[in-house]
């Protein structure tokens, strides 16, 4: 028995597959440096800008703003709950880390959606693209997240950029899958109706497929944002900063209290983000025109 275990550990060194991967990464490091530089600047700019914007309003202004949004889109009781939650974060002194976490989540999610939704649409419309996309998505979802932290660090060093990229990769699959599913699920008779009334392929996409896929697609958006939030904690290991850092410090120093505070702040942020993005997926949202939405908004103040 002992011998077998020794044998196993002995073989766990880089094999030919790993060698290939290492070579690829090295080649990219030597030859694709300018590309990484551009990506680095772009992501840094985006994440930095979002963080700047979120830092402009003071906590006493931003928290009520979020509460108003919650009251409008979800319910009054949820608005009160989120206001209490945000106050608790402020009280624990974790406001600034929360803002940088939020900025990172938003930046990664925006990029994931910008890349993921078109991929989902293409996959739904061309079966052979889906045949390629599908195993790649499986790979992205099942590969342990720590594994692609390593090349991310090698390409971009530590900090905000590799964290955003790792988060982006980890959180993209649901929106691709659910966009694909949403478009595929549009009833065949609606597609036929679209075609029978003279739709071109593009009109079919914009006038028939996307409007009918919207609820499913929005569920994908919600899932992507939630996954991004969960990845942000892991990304703190490569200097993502924010609440992940607080949790990580709690683990490293075996400080239960600090870890709990960080975790609690993540949960509060998660619940608020989840409910707000879910409300976007609610089917009545897409149906209301802008004046109707404005009226619903003003009703908040006129009715008790």
């Amino acid at each position: 028995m002992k011998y077998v275990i020794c044998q196993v550990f002995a073989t766990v060194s880089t094999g030919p597959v790993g060698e290939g991967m290492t070579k690829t990464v090295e080649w990219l490091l030597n030859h694709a440096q300018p590309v990484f530089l551009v990506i680095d600047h772009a992501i840094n700019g985006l994440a930095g800008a979002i963080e700047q914007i979120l830092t402009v309003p003071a906590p006493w202004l931003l928290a009520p703003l979020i509460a108003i949004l919650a009251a409008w889109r979800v319910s009054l009781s949820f608005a009160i709950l989120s206001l209490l939650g945000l106050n608790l974060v402020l009280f624990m002194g974790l406001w600034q880390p929360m803002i940088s976490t939020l900025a990172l989540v938003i930046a990664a999610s925006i990029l994931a959606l910008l890349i993921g939704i078109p991929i989902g649409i293409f996959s739904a419309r061309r079966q052979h693209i889906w045949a390629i996309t599908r195993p790649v998505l499986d790979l992205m979802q099942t590969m342990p997240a720590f594994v692609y932290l390593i090349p991310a660090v090698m390409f971009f060093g530590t900090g905000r950029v590799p964290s955003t990229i790792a988060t982006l990769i980890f959180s993209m699959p649901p929106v691709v899958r659910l966009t694909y599913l949403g478009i595929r699920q549009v009833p065949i008779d609606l597609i036929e109706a679209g075609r029978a009334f003279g739709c071109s392929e593009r009109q079919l996409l914009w006038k028939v497929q996307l409007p009918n896929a919207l609820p499913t697609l929005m569920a994908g958006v919600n899932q992507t944002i939630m996954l991004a939030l969960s990845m942000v904690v892991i990304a703190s290991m490569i200097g993502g900063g924010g609440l992940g850092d607080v949790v990580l410090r709690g683990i490293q120093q075996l400080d239960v209290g600090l870890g709990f505070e960080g975790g609690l702040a993540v949960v509060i942020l998660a619940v608020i983000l989840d409910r707000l993005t879910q409300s976007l997926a609610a089917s009545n949202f897409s149906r209301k025109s802008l004046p109707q939405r404005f009226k619903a908004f003003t009703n908040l103040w006129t009715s008790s």
Partner: protein
Amino acid sequence: MSDMTPQINIDKLWKVFGEHPERALDDLCQSMDAEELNARTGLKAAVRDVTLSISSGEIFVVMGLSGSGKSTLLRMINGLILPTAGEVTVEGKPISQLAAAELQKLRSNKMAMVFQSFALFPQRTALENAAFGLEVAGVPRQKRLEKAREALERVGLGKDLDRLPQQLSGGMQQRVGLARALALDPPILLMDEAFSALDPLIRREMQEQLLELQAESPRTIVFISHDLDEAVRLGDRIALMKEGKVLQCGTPRELLCKPANEQVRHFFQDVDAASVITVDTVAESPACVINQAELLLQQTDQYSKAQKIACIIDENNVFKGVLQQNGEIIPAEKGPALTAETTIRDAMELVANAPYPIPVIGSDQRLIGVISPRRLLRSMILR
């Protein structure tokens, strides 16, 4: 009703589903029936060698049980399904050879479709649904909403413009579906079991509405149905399909009175013949016809005892009146008479109550024959 220019021509059309569908087209396979073909080759022949020509302005009903290939046939007319062999020609344009853009234009301008499942867009209001075809065609918003509103008013939904499909009943939803098609004002209307999902009462109402719309502005309607009564009520002509083949194509009366084979007869055995057969086909020639000019010269006892009357006509065969046994003349405009297209059902009461056989007159006022209660009864037995 129809001028006889064929608007849709279907020429030796085949649709076979499966791998390498062209295998079904060789001579051996053509002789097999659908079941044998499927067992030997794994292919499913939905439409087999169908040739039809549909004239502009007629209601053409394609009838058959489910799985007979009638919906597939309809979808090949507007190119939603491409044929395996053969060709559909709409107003001279071969559908399977059109480029995508041309086909879209043809669908926008010439043909609109109404679906069994209504196929309304759930996130659009009734008005927006009705305006869909015009929106796709690029008609400006104000104009297309105006036209959509007119179309909805025509089908009796002028008050429910802003409701969503899920807030409407089945009958109302299909009215929106019909309005969506009518808003484009297409010369051809394709209706795929359009009324099959509706309650019998609503279905009847919709059928009547369709006939009214057709009377207002005739279009070519290709109507798919599995309901025989519906086919007989609506159809100017009916094509009866089974296992992808057309068993017989003709007017309801032709299919009923001269079935091409046992299967057609079997199909039509439950049809109420009295509401299909018209009086001109069962009228017998009058035993005694007197020319108007000779009337004064004739002896009154010359007319037949059996029919009790003599019909009076002028030199052009135009019906002028009836000479009764007692010598009394009833002029054409006062006495009872039947027009040629009256159905037996509608004629029954008049014929049963009249003291003598009723004259049947064509649209040009010429005398076709007379019909007695006895003749009427026999026509019901001997169909």
